[in-house]
């Protein structure tokens, strides 16, 4: 069996942000430096190498890019300044684009104009929906003497739209998940199906990985000087805030978006406050970091890397303003800022699910889950293992 | 005879002047010498009766092994310590019985 070398992949990857993969002379320092590598997953050099020779199939079948948390040790010790971590990042983007059946991700990753166009378009759609709704109702639902948000934007209607939009996004994600699973599991399934039992038995891997991203804490290995649980913890906070908000919106919007003022002790308020504070804190921290480019992983930020924290911050800040204005009883400002809030959140979801951290959040645990499935399949010797080292 | 005495006197004065001129380095070197002599005494005591390896001396004296090795190397160079054979992966060293040289 031989692989035909494809010289074009490396050129394509540059559009996804690979900034030094061509410089790599394959010394292996990065892989040996990385504390997250294992016998089964000796990255990042193997990924760089596959990129250099253009072995697309092997890259698609690999979960290694998702196992990297980009601590930057590989880059700071690289003797050729080949930025191995950034190549891993680029590969994550490239893989996301490959998983996306709509092709939208590829567009967003490789074109800044596409990103702006998408955001503007989605924002406009939301605006049009609002204007349309009020035009249809003869602008009677805009109460201005007091703040009547649920009249301005009837919660069940908004919720229905959120769920509809959510399911569209969910379809895209599920399609990506299926594509990824198919490629990753191919080396062990060899065309056969993995029994459902195994999927279910290994499911806890996904859940813990998703909830904690524990792997991250192994970054920098036993180097105590550099070891930093702070980054992991901040991220963990962000996730809790984000998930809280998501659950509140997706599951309990009718409870969350209300014209009634809950008393101060009410959990609805606390959940909202917690989520908002966490989101503001973490997203601004991330943005400042990216701005200063102090950490290795921020040195080569792409527009899509900025999207998520920017939107989170926008969403949280506008959310707060909606809250404040509502308390203050300023009707128009509440409605306007609410529209902006919704525009931002929808735009965020649309862009993020395809290309941003959302995808990362989603695919990382999935990668670990799929690896666990593979291990289980191998362990039970359901299929012979023909996969060469370093490629799966 | 008196000439010699004169010379010796002159020399003593000169050395004194020099010591004054190089006060700091001389003091520093004297400290070094004192420390070295103390360490050497400890090491030599252990190797006087029977040959010892570097880790044995280090363990018995509490001096780090690499320092023991350096002192033994130095003493070996100037004939104060001899190598007497091997014990496992380590050479055995012994203090030369009588002798300064």
């Amino acid at each position, binding site marked *: 069996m031989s692989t035909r070398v494809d010289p074009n992949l490396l050129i394509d990857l540059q559009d996804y942000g690979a900034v030094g993969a061509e410089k790599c002379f394959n010394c*292996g320092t990065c892989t*040996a430096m990385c504390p997250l590598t294992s016998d089964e997953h000796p990255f990042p050099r193997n990924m760089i190498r596959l990129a250099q020779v253009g072995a697309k199939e092997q890259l698609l079948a690999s979960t290694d890019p998702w196992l990297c948390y980009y601590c930057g040790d590989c880059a700071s010790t690289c*003797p050729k300044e080949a930025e191995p971590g950034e190549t891993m990042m680029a590969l994550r983007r490239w893989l996301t684009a490959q998983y996306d059946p709509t092709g939208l991700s590829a567009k967003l990753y490789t074109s800044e104009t596409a990103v702006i166009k998408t955001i503007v378009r989605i924002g406009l759609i939301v605006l049009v929906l609002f204007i349309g709704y009020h035009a249809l109702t003869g602008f009677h639902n805009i109460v201005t003497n007091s703040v009547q948000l649920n009249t301005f934007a009837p919660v069940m209607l908004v919720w229905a739209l959120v769920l509809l939009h959510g399911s569209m996004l969910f379809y895209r994600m599920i399609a990506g998940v299926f594509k990824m699973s198919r490629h990753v599991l191919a080396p062990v399934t060899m065309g056969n199906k993995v029994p459902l039992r195994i999927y279910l038995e290994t499911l806890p891997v996904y859940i813990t990985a998703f909830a904690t991203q524990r792997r991250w804490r192994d970054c920098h290995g036993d180097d105590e000087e550099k070891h930093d649980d702070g980054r992991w913890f901040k991220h963990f906070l962000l996730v809790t805030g984000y998930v809280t908000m998501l659950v509140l919106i997706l599951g309990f919007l009718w409870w969350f978006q209300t014209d009634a003022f809950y008393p101060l002790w009410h959990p609805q308020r606390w959940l909202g406050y917690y989520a908002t504070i966490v989101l503001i804190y973490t997203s601004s921290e991330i943005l400042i970091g990216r701005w200063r480019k102090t950490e290795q992983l921020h040195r080569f930020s792409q527009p899509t890397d900025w999207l998520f924290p920017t939107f989170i911050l926008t969403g949280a800040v506008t959310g707060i303003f909606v809250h404040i204005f509502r308390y203050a009883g300023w009707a128009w400002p509440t409605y306007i800022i609410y529209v902006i809030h919704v525009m931002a959140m929808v735009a965020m979801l649309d862009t993020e699910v395809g290309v941003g951290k959302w995808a990362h959040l989603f695919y990382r645990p999935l990668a670990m889950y799929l690896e666990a499935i593979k291990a289980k399949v191998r362990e039970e010797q359901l299929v012979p293992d023909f996969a060469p*080292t370093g490629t799966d | 005879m008196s000439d010699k005495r004169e010379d010796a006197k002159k020399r003593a004065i000169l050395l004194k002047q*020099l010591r004054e001129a190089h006060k700091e380095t*001389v003091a520093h*070197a004297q400290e070094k010498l004192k420390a070295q002599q103390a360490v050497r005494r400890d090491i030599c005591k252990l190797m006087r009766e029977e040959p010892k390896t570097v*880790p044995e001396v280090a363990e018995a004296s509490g001096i780090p092994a690499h320092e023991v090795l350096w002192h033994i190397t130095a003493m070996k160079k100037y004939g104060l310590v001899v190598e007497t054979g091997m014990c496992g*992966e380590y050479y055995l060293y012994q203090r030369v019985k009588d002798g300064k040289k």
Partner: protein
Amino acid sequence: MKNLQVDALVVGGGIAGMQSALDLADQGFHVALVEKEASIGGKMISLSKVFPTLDCCSCITTPKMSAVAHHENITLLTYCEVVALEQNGASYRAQINKKPRYVNEESCTGCRLCEYACPLDLPSAFDMGLGAQRVIRVPFSTAVPQKAVLDIDNCILCGKCENVCPVADCIDFTQTAVTFEIHADAIVLATGFELTPTDAKAEYGGGKLRNVVDALTVERFLAPTGPYGHVLRPSDGKEPESIAYVQCAGSRDISLGVAYCSRICCMYAIKQAMLLSGALPLADITIYYMDIRTFGKGYEQFYQNARAMGIEFVRGKVARIHEDAAQNPVVRVEQIDDGSVVEREHDMVVLSVGMLPSYNPGLIYNVPVAADDGFVAQSAANISPCLTYQPGIFVAGTAAGPMDIVDSIVMAGAAAAETAAYLEERRAVGMAGNGRSPQTTSVKEVSYA
């Protein structure tokens, strides 16, 4: 100290400087050789055996050192440095600072009685700090000149050396630095190189791991005059059973600021591996490398012999070295051939450190160095490799970039040819100091008022 008038001034008494001086002197030119250390011989004299012939290194170096010292056309000036240079018409006037030895160079017989009498041992730089030397000593056993030198900064002025010295007034604590001038029509820079310091790379222990040593240290271990007389590891004197070489530990690594190849490390590692397997027949020797660069005449066969001898070659650049509880260095490396990451414990790890420029002649000689590597810039690198950007100043050996002994010697010969031709051509147009021809010159030392 009298001022000197010579045809050529050679700066640096390593192998390149010595060979240039000899090749010029053999043609009848008068040469002054200035060396900053107390003995000539350079880095080469501290080596054990040399590749690919495995000749005893001192057997090649010492005759040249001896020849330099004995040559009637060479004035050897050790412990001297050029501190200033002036262009004097078409020739140069160099100001030389001779450091005090505190020992009368003319009368010292090199008997080493003072050395034996001295009470204080210091770490010896010649043995990379692992051996000892006295405050007053002959620099090393094959030093040229065989004259003692005293380290005043570590001296307690006890006078014991003076007491045992058999020569009257030989040891002289009152000596001071002396300045004099050398007038030369041409200058050969043979200022050599330095090794990458062992603490250059934090991932390799930052110089703190005792059993991680550089290759020059191993040269001393292997040399019969070395500190231990055997190959022992420095932490506790254990005879190592497993030794690893980490190639490119100072070369081809931008994270260290060195992008270039140091050219000698592959061969010296292979050579040392072969010598070590001779000295320690049971030891396992592993060389971790990226590319084996055995490019010289007879080098590839040397490499193949080493492979046949059972020396293990592992492709992969060592990423990190740490220590286990027993001070055994553990290397972490990706074995490129199969892509697996391994951690392997050895008794001793040798860093194949690279070559760095040791001296920037910009300030004194107005000779520029290359921006990318810091070595002396060659103005016509291909056709006239010994020319610098300063007329009358030539470069030889590793001052012009990493090279091995063979290449240094050849380049030293070339520098002598360039210099000789330059001197000859200047004479032809009547520009030389005295219009002397090399055969008829009889005045060696001329005093300047």
